[in-house]
């Protein structure tokens, strides 16, 4: 094993849960999302990404959606309108799957 191949141990880090309640500032959101500034602006205009309470911040859950949009853009050559449409449908599917999960939990029988 060469020097470069030896695993590097790092100290323990606490992960942050991405949800509706925690927020991230605009610049960090933009850098982490993988979206270009104009694409982010367009997705906000289309209403599929919303800024959180404080101006210029987003919820960390929105970061999950923004990254999804960037991946879809790369892999399917989508423009902003295409990303917005895909995100809207995927969010609807997420909500339906969550509802389905909740109903399945109430059915008798094994999990």
């Amino acid at each position: 094993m060469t020097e470069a191949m030896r695993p590097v141990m790092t100290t323990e880090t606490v992960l942050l849960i991405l949800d509706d309640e925690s927020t991230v500032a605009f610049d960090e959101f933009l850098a982490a999302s993988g979206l270009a500034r104009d694409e982010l602006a367009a997705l906000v205009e289309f209403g599929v990404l919303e800024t959180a309470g404080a101006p210029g911040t987003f919820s960390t859950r929105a970061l999950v959606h923004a990254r999804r949009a960037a991946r879809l853009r790369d892999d399917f050559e989508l423009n902003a309108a295409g990303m917005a449409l895909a995100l809207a449908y995927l969010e609807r599917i997420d909500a339906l799957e969550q509802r389905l999960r909740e109903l399945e939990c109430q059915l008798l029988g094994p999990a």
Partner: protein
Amino acid sequence: MKYKDYYATLGVARDASADDIKKSYRKLARKYHPDVSKEKDAEEKFKEVQEAYETLKDAEKRAAYDQLGRYQPGEDFRPPPGWERQFRFEQGSFDDFDLADLFEHFGGGPFQGRGARGRRGGPGAGGFAMRGQDYEVTAHLTLEDLCRGAEVSLDLAAPEMTPDGAVRRVPKTVRVRVPKGATDGQRLRVPGKGGSGAGSGPAGDLYLNIALHPHPLYKVSGHDLYLELPVTPWEAVLGSEVEVPTLDGRVKVSVRPGSRPGQKLRLAGKGLPKPREGHGDLYCVLQIVTPSVLSEREKQLYVELGRISGFNPRGHLG
């Protein structure tokens, strides 16, 4: 270096046209894209398809790949003599390389870690800057892990740029703590714990997806738990107190007289902990279970009950 058959991955012949390669890629991307696919192992398959396409869509990379020769997938091989010179490949050693890395920065292009897809460089006023690769990994946790929080060791290996400009695969183990309050399907993040940036670019981020192992008793929806609670017909009819297991010990719950199957009894705050404060709820879903083996005496009592009862559940059927 291990050989990968990119043509087989895309399901095209070795002499396929660029158009056919693109068509096949699109079809497979649609099928396996992890954001839209429900196929098993979609993510893994998508990565393979993407890697194959990245090389075969580019005429120069494809020619270089073809010149490597043909091997069995997974077979160890070395590029033929002179290959590096012919294709202006400037790295020193092939030993630490994955075939994908070989083509990733082929032809002297700027290094871009695999997975750092479509990152557009920053303003780059001071020269070349590339944000590091994001890592995205899945951790399989138990219900108990979610209640207490859990420490997870992640083995990561991604190409990183060394100060002298070479690219190496650097394995590293990152220990992370999943705080209590996380639940199934949730994503977590640590900024700056992804791959190192190149030039003056910042490091990427680390993302963790939570996948919950099924629990023998509880089903999970968000932070709520569901427990199937079997009761006897007489417990359901007459009402009773029964013990149920919760995450923090057994508690007694009242089954009301006249309870029906599928009814839910809610135990507030007995679900999974939420991130900031509070807990989800535990729902006991009543199941009325009939005995399959009866003693003579039990049978007699049922017969008598049937004789004297005026209850008709099928009255509305006419």
